């Protein structure tokens, strides 16, 4: 375990070194992330300039949920968000290299692709949450913060697990697929109150692609809403299950892997 931590730190060190070489790239990435989040916020503001309530939710509450969502998203983007897996590891065959090294293959892939600067998004998330809260009266109990941390880990695990699952598909077939962007578009639904959607979408977001556990359920608990309380407490469990399913699929996929080229 200790050696894994030291390996992680070594990867991190190397990453920072390469990143510093391309420092403008770094800045551009940061600004584009910020703009992206600003657009989402403006979208919320535009909606609430037409109405004061959305199925019982006020502007402050919706902003709070979005702000909360940004925190697990930032962790996910830092350590699990790999868009080029199929291209780089399957088609260009870099997985062969990974497989000849004595560290778990998934761990190596994740460490080679981490972008820890995305963790800055945590700060954005907190700022947006505080902004949302300024219009609300929320009571924070001493254990709320602990629960929030637990929920955040659950949310990261949901996102991470689903992405690992999607990457595992590439281990079975080397054809390009566009499932990843589609699934992650659906993922965006999880950052708004689920009761504004059709019943079917609610079921999908809860039990099939449980993105609602990333943003809405835990955030609604922190907003002292009672209706989704039980579901909010399920967050860590759901996260763990999805992550586990992802890892199992990955391991099976590696056994199935046919190698590139030739």
């Amino acid at each position, binding site marked *: 375990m200790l*050696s894994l931590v030291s390996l992680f730190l070594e990867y991190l060190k190397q990453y920072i070194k*390469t990143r510093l*070489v391309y420092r403008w790239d770094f800045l551009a990435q940061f600004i584009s992330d910020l703009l992206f989040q600003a657009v989402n916020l403006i979208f919320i503001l535009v909606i609430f300039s037409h109405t004061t309530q959305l199925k019982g939710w006020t502007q402050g509450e919706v902003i709070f949920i979005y702000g909360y969502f940004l925190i697990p998203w930032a962790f996910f983007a830092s350590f699990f968000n790999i868009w080029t897996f199929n291209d780089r590891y399957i088609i260009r065959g870099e997985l*062969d*290299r990974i*497989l000849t090294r004595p560290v778990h293959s998934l761990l190596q892939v994740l460490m080679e692709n981490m972008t820890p600067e995305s963790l800055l998004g945590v700060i954005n998330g907190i700022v947006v949450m505080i902004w949302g809260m300024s219009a609300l009266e929320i009571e924070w109990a001493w254990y709320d913060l602990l629960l929030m941390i637990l929920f955040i880990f659950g949310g990261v695990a949901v996102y991470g697990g689903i992405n690992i699952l999607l990457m595992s598909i590439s281990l079975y077939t080397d054809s390009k697929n566009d499932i990843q962007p589609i699934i992650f578009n659906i993922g965006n639904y999880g950052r708004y109150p689920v009761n504004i959607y059709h019943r079917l979408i609610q079921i999908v977001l809860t039990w099939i692609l449980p993105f609602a556990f990333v943003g809405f359920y835990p955030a609604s608990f922190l907003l002292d809403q009672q209706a989704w309380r039980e579901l909010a407490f399920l967050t860590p469990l759901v996260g763990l299950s999805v992550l586990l399913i992802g890892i199992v699929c990955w391991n099976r996929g590696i056994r199935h892997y*046919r190698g590139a080229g*030739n």
Partner: protein
Amino acid sequence: MLSICARGLTKEFRVFQSRSGLLGAFRDLWNRNYRIIRAVDHIDLEIYQGEMVGYIGENGAGKSTTIKMLTGILEPTSGDLTVNGYHPHRQRREFVKTIGVVFGQRSQLWWDIAVKESFRLLQKVYRVHDEQYEKHLRRMIEVMDIGNLLDQPVRKLSLGQRMRCELVAALIHQPSLLFLDEPTIGLDVLVKDNIRRFLKEINQEFRTTILLTTHDLSDIEALCSRVIMLDQGRIIYDGDLQRLRSKWGSGKKIHLAVEENVSLKQLEKYTEGLAVTWSKRTERKVSAVLNHDTPVSKVLACLVERIPIQEVQIEEDSTEEIVRKIYQGGETNA
């Protein structure tokens, strides 16, 4: 001790066959045709610790697939395989600590970071102790002469420079078995020479087993005591290079330039009792093809007293030609 032991090693791939035309493409959606391709077909292999073995065969003969099974990347469809005492695929993480791998056409190093950082990362990945790492690495850097490349990112290196670094990278954890897939492809003579010398040294000093696939037979001539030849997934030859020559080489040829006209009949008479076939190229140039067990010296001895010879040329099939002949002849002749 056995480094590699395989019994009936087989790998099959299921390949999707598409139908032709647009209609065919639609039918493919519902009902697919698959074909089973047996890339490696019941191979038996025994390679001992410290051997240097050349693994050759045409493109598509199954070389890469075999290597990928031996390195634990692919799981065999059937057969028993033990490498360095491990089952490569099932015990992969433990197993790969004992092997080094160089794929000539793909980099094992990290593209963006400096060479020495790549080495350092590998040290952590393989958990090599600092002291041992420093000592071993310093020595390899010296022998491979890459000291001045260490600060450059891999993407800025030339192919020859990169290959030298790749080799060092593959040996950081001092593996007892080294796989080299086309290690000298596209390299110039000097670099090739450097790499071969280095491999010999490693092999002699650490008794590292080396298995190398190559299209360049001069690699094998320079390095390997043993050759394994693969055709359509099967081993068609396993033995030393010398035997390969005598088995498939067409024997030595002697070309003579003589001062005056000699008839073939005369020549045949002079060399009676020896297995020699004569032919005439021009008026004063004749050639003899010798059987394997006919010594050149004997043939010449029969001639020098009787005919005035101007020039003698002795020709032998190069390994390259022999191998080409085998490929062209296919398995049946072999």
